């Protein structure tokens, strides 16, 4: 994609996550009190407001919960492309591009996907692609 694709900037609360992405790890936080894994990283548990949490490396595997095919062209993106809500096996969901599919064909809901990492300049970003054969 183009050089003008928007890039994330970490906050102190998300620095650990983005450092993990840089190491090709998808880190999730789990509340120390109620054990809920959640995303995005934040300083309190979104379920019990617990104040301490522990990061762990997610498997990187999930499924397509829902998706659209965008025919818009924001900076750095050429239409059509697939924007999907991915539900990770651990439970939390995130928003991601789907790579490795024909964007003119609908990606089936519940398609198993796996994380991939892509370098954009000095920044590493995550995306997902349909899971390959075992």
């Amino acid at each position, binding site marked *: 994609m183009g050089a003008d694709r928007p890039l*994330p*900037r970490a906050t102190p609360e998300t620095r650990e996550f*983005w450092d993990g992405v840089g190491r090709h790890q998808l880190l999730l936080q789990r509340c120390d009190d109620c054990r809920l894994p959640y*995303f995005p990283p934040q300083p309190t548990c979104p379920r019990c407001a617990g104040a301490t949490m522990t990061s762990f490396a997610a498997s990187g595997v999930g499924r397509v919960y829902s998706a659209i*095919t*965008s025919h818009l062209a924001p900076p750095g993106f050429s239409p059509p492309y697939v924007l999907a809500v991915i539900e990770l096996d651990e439970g939390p969901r*995130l928003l991601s591009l789907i790579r490795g599919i024909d964007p003119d064909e*609908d990606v089936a809901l519940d398609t198993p996907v796996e994380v991939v990492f892509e370098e954009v300049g000095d920044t590493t970003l995550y*995306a997902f692609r349909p899971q390959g054969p075992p």
Partner: protein
Amino acid sequence: MTGVAIVGAAESAEIGVVPTMSALGLAVDAARRALADCGLSAADVDGVAAAGLAPYLAVQLAAALGIEARWVDATMVGGCSNIVHVLHAADAIAAGRCSVVLVAHGESGRSGIGAPVYRHAPDSLPGQFEQPVGAAGPMTLLSLGTRRFLADRGFGAEALAEVVVAQREWAARNPRALRATITTVDEVLAAPPVAAPLTRPMCCVATDAGGAVVLTSVERAAALPRPPVRLLGGGSATGSAMVWTAPDLTSSEAFRRSGAAAFAEAGLGPADIDHAMLYDAIATLPLMALEDLGIVGRGASAAFVAGGHTRPDGRLPVNTTGGGLAYTHSGMYGIYALLESVRQLRGEAAAQVDGVQRSLVHTIGGMFHAAATLILGVNEA
């Protein structure tokens, strides 16, 4: 809440493409017309509410009109903000904090005149977790749950098209509607995709427009020229931090909470409603609102719309201007939904429905970030 009424209401003189006015100008124009509508002057107004991407719009509006407010609300939660303002104003009037409140909106959504440009900071939540992966504004975010909603309910994309077809029937009766042509399900499905499965007609228009209402106590309303439109019940709710963090994208917890509060306060149920404005930035939203408000059961929204029940001569007219999909939508749409409810209750709508006595306005803010619902009525004992 039942002690407060809308006594003045107006849109800006022009809506659609208005190259002659800034966002503030549109708000001021609507405000002046709403004041004229109730025969009050700026000197009578002691409370003001407005919101937009510019943080001080309420103050700029008050200053432009010479209003010296002792109550101000600039709550900004997206398109439902003006409905939240009405709820807050009703409480303030009842508490005696102010007596006459102006709630106004103006937005140069198409022409971008005097309109701040919104950019997500790269370290904001959207800047980190949406913008880098291809989010491209409301049409690509609001729509994210649509395919799961359709699949879960067993609907095809025709369900979305039927919403458009029904609302064009209303738009065709409204000289101010931007998309006033009758259409068919096939035409809507064949239109260019925007965020598939949403095609262009399933996405709202982008216009320049303004709107305003004036509220006061029912006691004071009795001395004013227009028939008062009483606030019967209302509710507001927060939703999810980002649209995809909600546990279920096929049903909005914020819609349910906001709607339930409005019905509970009014002491009414869905069967008591004669008319509804259901915020329709995309065609999925009215289907979800019909279900989440309890107007129909889960999974029954598509058949309700396709069966003609929301069209002219249907048993629950919905979005009777044509809505955001066909009438006007400046970016934040709540005020325009409210204004049509007021017109229908007063008997002066372009596409007037016979005998409307209770109208429901249901609005969304942001990308399911918030919701606010209002039930209004006339001829209440």
